[in-house]
């Protein structure tokens, strides 16, 4: 399907990438009814030191993608495709390899930090555990490092906080603790699954600043999932837009958000209060709602909400295709790639 030239470039990119996901497909079996097709054959790469934004609304498959990368999905999920991390196959790892991979190479933080911490255990001890999964250290050394981590992520009175319990902390502080625990392992990849959705805006700005600093200072690669294009704009080098389990557009952040080619990206930008023109009181609207993972929409999953939809969009699912003159900018739309971008 792809030209030989493209394939060469892909291979080259893959060898440079820290993480490569190819044709990832995830279905959930349920007791009642049809299996849910949550992720539909997506491919993506994350380079070393790169911050990639994974954008989508509810049901887009962004969280399932993150969980698949760490093999954290429940037993009723069936995964096909390839996931390679530094050239190593993640899907084929045995339990011990997998444990070490999650503890030391790729860490994840979630939207609700409170539920990821043990409420009965002092915060400091939880960070020390994280240090010990990664390397051997004396209790005194591990404690010193844990306190240093707390300082590193901007927690004031780190000594006192070290002995505190999760319930004594605010949501913003807990998210910092989660980041500290992740960093204690000095991972190469940090996956942030909507890490600021439950936080206040001023706290969100602080967490973004922290992630940005870590990426700059430690060269940690980051996958940042969000429904908020504004955050992507402030944080990410590259953006991947997902809709109904598939990637609909991917490009460098400025290109994807400045000159989007997929109608969904274009319309999502118009619907965002942050992105609409300064004078606009009315926001641009996308009719309908994001589909549920149980809805099986033929062709392009966005066609029922798309003003440009034609007959072929109903019949054949468009693949990701390079936009004119921009090999790194790809969009999955029959119409705009033939007739030009949708007017904002």
């Amino acid at each position, binding site marked *: 399907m792809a030209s030989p030239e493209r394939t060469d470039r892909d291979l080259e990119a893959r060898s440079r990438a820290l993480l490569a996901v190819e044709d990832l497909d995830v279905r959930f079996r349920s007791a009642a009814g049809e299996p849910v097709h949550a992720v539909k054959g997506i491919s993506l790469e994350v380079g070393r030191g790169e911050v990639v934004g994974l954008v989508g*609304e*509810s049901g887009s498959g962004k969280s399932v993608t993150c969980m698949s990368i760490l093999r954290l999905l429940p037993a009723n999920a069936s995964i096909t495709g390839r996931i390679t991390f530094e050239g190593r196959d993640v899907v084929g790892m045995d339990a011990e390899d997998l444990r070490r991979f999650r503890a030391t190479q790729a860490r994840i933080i979630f939207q609700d930090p409170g539920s990821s911490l043990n409420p009965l255990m002092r915060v400091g001890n939880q960070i020390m555990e994280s240090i010990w999964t990664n390397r051997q250290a004396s209790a005194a050394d591990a404690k010193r490092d844990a306190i240093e981590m707390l300082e590193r992520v901007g927690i*004031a009175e780190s000594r006192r906080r070290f002995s505190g319990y999760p319930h004594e902390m*605010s949501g*913003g*502080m807990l998210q910092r603790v989660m980041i500290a625990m992740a960093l204690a392992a000095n991972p190469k990849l940090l996956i942030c699954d909507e890490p600021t959705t439950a936080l*206040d*805006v*001023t*706290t*969100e*700005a*602080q967490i973004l*600043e922290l992630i940005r600093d870590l990426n700059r200072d430690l060269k940690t690669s980051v996958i940042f999932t969000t*429904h*908020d*294009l*504004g*955050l992507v*704009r*402030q944080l990410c080098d590259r953006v991947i837009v997902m809709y109904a389990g598939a990637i609909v557009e991917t490009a460098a952040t*400025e290109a994807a958000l400045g000159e989007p080619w997929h109608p969904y990206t274009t*319309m*999502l930008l*118009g*619907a*965002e*209060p*942050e*992105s*609409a023109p*300064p004078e*606009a*009181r*009315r*926001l*641009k*609207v*996308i*009719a309908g*709602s*994001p589909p549920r993972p149980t809805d099986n929409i033929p062709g392009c999953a966005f066609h029922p*909400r798309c003003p440009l939809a034609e007959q072929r969009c109903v019949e054949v699912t468009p693949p990701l295709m390079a936009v004119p003159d921009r090999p790194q900018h790809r969009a999955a739309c029959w119409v705009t790639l033939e007739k030009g971008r949708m007017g904002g």
Partner: protein
Amino acid sequence: MRTLGVSKFFPVRGRFGRTTAQVHAVDSVSLEVGHQETLGLVGESGSGKTTLGWTVARLHEPTGGKVEFEGRDISHLGRGALKDVHRRLQMVFQNPWTSLDPQFSVGDTIGEPLAIHRVGSSRSREQRVAELLDLVGLRPADRHRFPHELSGGQRQRVGIARALALEPSFLIADEPTSSLDVSVQAQIVNLLQDLQERLGLSFLFITHNLHLVRRVSHRIAVMYLGRVVESGPARELFERPLHPYTAALVASKSAGYESRRIVLKGEIPSPLNPPSGCHFRTRCPIARERCAREYPPLVEVEPGRPVACFYPGEVKT
């Protein structure tokens, strides 16, 4: 609608149920919402914005000050008199998952206020429910559906239709879109604006999202730890914020690549124990010694631009 120095304190009870402290959730707030006007009320958690909304709607009784609605003091009305007020003043809630009764069909939910207030015959109520469905963009067939069959956006439309059933003049919308997807949020925001034009409604729109409130509001008031720190016409406040807290909110998620980020230090202090002087000083990039000593009063530094800061306009976005 007008509030005059409205306060709402909640007692904090210690052992044996004795009151040991008061949380000043809302502290001497004066606001006005004119006819067909939307006032956006912005703040983060603990700012008191929701408590203020509930006090205006008289779901809380104010501890101090006055709430006036259509020229009448409603601060301490009893239940019977409030029932009349609530025909004219209604609320739309944040979470369309919990604010709808799962056992009520859409039609029953929307018709309930009419039945409670014994408006018209059951036939004319049916008629009114049909009108309301159409008004908020639902299909006639949706009246027989139940909340679990609806999407988030559809549920919020039901919540709006229920609020409009008694033809109120004033709606208080408390974070009506914060649990919705971005693409659906825009639909609800535009619907509220349409309804304002068609029905001549006034709105108090409560949200944490300054960018959103800018789209819907004529004027905006920003709250921090129970007090209003700044208010003004939406566009002016957004383009030239005078309070450093407003400036930080405007800078958050701003669309421009080149716009400056203002990252505040620390966290919002507990409303139980707010800092001395200016409540914002612990996080303020320009706080000085004076800010710890005195609370800056809300002063109109320019016509229509009251701000509670000794150094207004110093932090630029």
